[in-house]
């Protein structure tokens, strides 16, 4: 693969078969990576499964455990105290919590431009109008009507989640943005926007681990808002 990749990059002659193979490998690598990232965020968001354990553990073989125990405990206590001494002043001096920073990103509502003429149902049109007027209560009512009538699309879940986010109903926002994310997985519509706002919803709902995973995914995939995602990750 690497040898052919160099040829592929350098405009050197490749047989049709070589070109075919390397194109297949490249595209397989690209789409597999997209699948990995999508499954990673779903595993974290829907099944609480993450690559790293939430608790920091020091791996030891069973036979070592008894022998090292006193030294290990003393070292762990000393390290914890030292860490607290270093870290606590940082928190005290820092004026911005991740939640506060997330709140700043939520000050200006995400615009709704998705009016598509005759495709729009009356309910959706009312929801869009209410949302754009920042009448989020009325918008939520209309979106919930669409969901109840099983006509809801990914955008409806997305804007319902946003309306809940702007009205500080964080658990509901998480629920509906997760539903939007699940629906968006098969298409491209709103995918990156959902990821960003879902990460903010996670932060506000204090699902910090999930927020971190999703923000990291945004950074890794160079998605929309990646620079802001980096800022938030630095604060968490």
């Amino acid at each position, binding site marked *: 693969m690497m040898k052919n990749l160099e040829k592929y990059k350098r405009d050197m002659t490749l047989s049709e078969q070589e070109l075919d193979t390397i*194109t297949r490998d*490249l595209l397989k*690598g690209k789409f597999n990576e997209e699948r990995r990232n999508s499954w990673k965020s779903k595993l974290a968001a829907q099944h609480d*499964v993450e690559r790293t354990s939430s608790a920091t553990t020091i791996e030891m073989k069973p036979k070592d455990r008894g022998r090292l125990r006193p030294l290990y405990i003393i070292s762990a206590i000393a390290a914890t105290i030292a860490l607290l001494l270093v870290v606590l002043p940082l928190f005290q001096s820092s004026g911005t919590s991740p939640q506060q920073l997330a709140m700043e990103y939520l000050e200006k509502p995400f615009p709704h431009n998705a009016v598509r003429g005759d495709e729009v149902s009356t309910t959706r049109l009312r929801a869009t109008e209410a949302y754009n007027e920042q009448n989020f209560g009325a918008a939520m009512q209309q979106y919930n009507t669409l969901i109840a009538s099983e006509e809801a699309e990914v955008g409806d879940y997305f804007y319902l989640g946003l309306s809940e986010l702007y009205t500080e109903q964080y658990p509901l926002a998480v629920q509906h943005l997760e539903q939007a994310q699940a629906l968006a997985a098969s298409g491209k519509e709103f995918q990156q926007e959902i990821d960003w706002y879902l990460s903010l919803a996670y932060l506000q709902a204090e699902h910090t681990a999930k927020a971190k995973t999703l923000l990291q995914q945004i950074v890794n995939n160079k998605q929309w808002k990646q620079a802001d995602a980096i800022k938030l990750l630095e604060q968490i």
Partner: protein
Amino acid sequence: MNKNFGLTLAEFELLLEEVQAGDNTRFEQVFLAHFNDCINYLKSNYDAKQEDAYDATMETLIIFHDRMKEGKVTYGNLRFLFTQIASQYYLRWIKKEQLTQTLPETLDRIEANAQLDRETLGTLDKAWAQLGQKCQDLLKAFYYGNVKLNELALIAESSPAAVRKQKQRCVEQLRSLFQQFS
């Protein structure tokens, strides 16, 4: 745990049809729900670390999905097959081919999935974004979706020869864009 992840034969066949048609909704529902079981299996059987067990299970999921797409997975004991692929992948990857147990013949060809380095992936993403939608659809369907040229010709209401030419043009265009961004 149910040896077929709770799927009946009919449900499995439906799942297989959906995966082959590019719909992964049910596949994800079933397999992501059992992801942690496989991690725990690797941890308890091979003393695997969380990160390694997670990565091996993720790669197994990719392999399993590909095999289902190619119609190479049959109903019977899906859980056994899944955990055996995960075990083999983990052992080959972590312990450098030190296989300690006999594995089913069907698993002989488990190889690492194509994983691109960050730089290549970034270049490819930029090139891909510049490629026209038609080329994207055609290349994705042919190289990733395993859709044959004559099937693509039927969909496009065109001849296989014309689709083949179009595919070649798209391949060259992708390469040219890749070189620009390299």
